[in-house]
């Protein structure tokens, strides 16, 4: 039980792919111009993660070590293509916005890392939980970054929600009483935003200070 709990906590926080492992930065930086974009990409990534993890886990005993990466990539790309076609069929508008970035999920290192380090070594159940929690952790970061950039860069929140909820929700986004600083929407804003998130993470997990504290403890006890 506690094993599953660690898996979930790992994916969401302690081994969060975007914040701690700094994987999948490319879609993270490119797509988070609004919260809704971030959400959509996050969901797509999570679905791909769960599927690839379960498939890789199933075939893990038959893998040849030297060509495993090749096989992972083949599996991931097939799945992503499927999801790309599905979104195009059922969420055509969203597909228009995410367009290029759904195929780009293939290059998201989170998925490859999960396949390599989790799915190819664990049972299917564990792999699915790990993949799902990592996907959700990634989605959470996309949401926070997307929301942050949208508020600062456009002065709005949930714009484009209609792409997910349908036309009835066209006007149901929040507009703040300022126009926003455009730089947050532009590529530099993505880097600033991610940097701030990582800085905040360092406040909670100060890796450097742990090292220092341990050192001083030892030198005190010996000095």
């Amino acid at each position, binding site marked *: 039980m506690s094993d599953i709990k660690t898996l979930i906590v790992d994916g969401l926080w302690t081994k969060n792919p975007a914040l701690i492992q700094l994987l999948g930065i490319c879609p993270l930086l490119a797509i988070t111009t609004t919260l809704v974009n971030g959400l959509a990409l996050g969901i797509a990534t999570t679905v791909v993660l769960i599927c690839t993890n379960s498939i890789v886990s199933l075939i893990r005993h038959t893998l040849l070590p030297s060509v495993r990466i090749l096989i992972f990539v083949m599996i991931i790309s097939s799945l992503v293509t499927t999801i790309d076609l599905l979104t195009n069929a059922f969420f055509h508008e969203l597909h228009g916005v995410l367009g290029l970035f759904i195929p780009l999920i293939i290059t998201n290192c989170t998925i490859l890392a999960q396949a390599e380090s989790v799915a190819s070594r664990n049972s299917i159940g564990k792999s699915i939980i790990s993949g799902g929690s990592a996907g959700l952790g990634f989605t959470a970061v996309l949401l926070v970054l997307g929301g942050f950039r949208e508020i600062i860069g456009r002065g709005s929140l949930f714009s484009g929600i209609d792409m997910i909820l349908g036309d009835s929700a066209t006007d149901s986004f929040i507009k703040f009483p300022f126009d926003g*600083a*455009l*730089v*947050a929407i*532009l590529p*530099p804003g993505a880097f*600033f935003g991610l940097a701030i998130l990582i800085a905040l993470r360092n406040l909670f997990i100060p890796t450097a200070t742990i090292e220092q504290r341990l050192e001083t403890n030892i030198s005190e006890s010996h000095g």
Partner: protein
Amino acid sequence: MNFPINSSPHVLPITSVPIIMRHVLYALIPSTIVYVWYFGFGIFINMLIASIAALISEAIMLRIRNRPIKPSLADGSAIVTAILIAFSIPPLAPWWLPVLGASSAIVLAKHLYGGIGANIFNPAMVGYAILLLSFPVQMTHWIPPQIENLGFQNIDLWSTVLYSVTGSLPSNLNLDAITQATPLDIVKGGLKNGISINELRSGPLFSQLGGYGWEWINIFTAFGGVYLLYKGIIRWHIPVSLLTSITIFAALFYLYDPNQNLSPSFHLLSGATVLGAFFIATDPVSAAATNQGRLIYGASIGALTYAIRTWGGYPDGLAFAVLLMNLMVPLIDRFTTPKIYGQQQ
């Protein structure tokens, strides 16, 4: 008798960081006076707001980083950054523009990299670039020179203050009526629409050498720069190579087609060319270190500035040219290391 032991050399240093910064500020006085003559007192308000914002953010960052606050505040580097930002934003600007510019310069470009001496990028130019990217509209609303015979509506000091603080203008004034694009902006837009240089330069904002008013600001900035050279605060390599390379590029293209390309004098005397050459590119922290490297650095900034002005998306490319070349500084330094005495290369 017992005497203290000190390390050699036993001699007083001949200069110090605060003295350098103070001279830089002195050198900016003539151009400020001309600026006020042409564009009104708006720049004073911006300077004041930017300086306060810079000092406050400097103090906060020093506090967060557990560094002594007083000596770093007193060295005047934050004020120099703030004044340079005030020079690069329109005289008629809402108060938060200089505040955002100065504080992002100090926080993002200076202290996140480790404070004075450790910044890779020129803080003032980072502040300016962030403002320009974020608020393109406000950053290009420039009031025209406040000279009677040009036929523009003038704005007095009180209205400037009022606009800065509240964002609203007296009822008889309209923001669009009293603001204009800068000469470089007009040229850029005009050329895109197929208007020739000659037609463009017959407009009221242009004069013989460059933009009306701008030419004199640039010339007086150059006086300040010469003062810095005379005082030994800066060395001649960067300004000379920068101005030379802009002149050469401008001259080549101007000779090729005077109707599509601006004259060298226009390039030299409009926008931030001279300010950049003497005050921005010479910022020691982010510039190349060796004389040879400084020549390369200055010439590259000149070339990039010309390229961005002519073919880029922004009317004045100096800030971006400086930032790009800041990135190249370690490389330049690496390849311009002088040969050490007595060592074979």
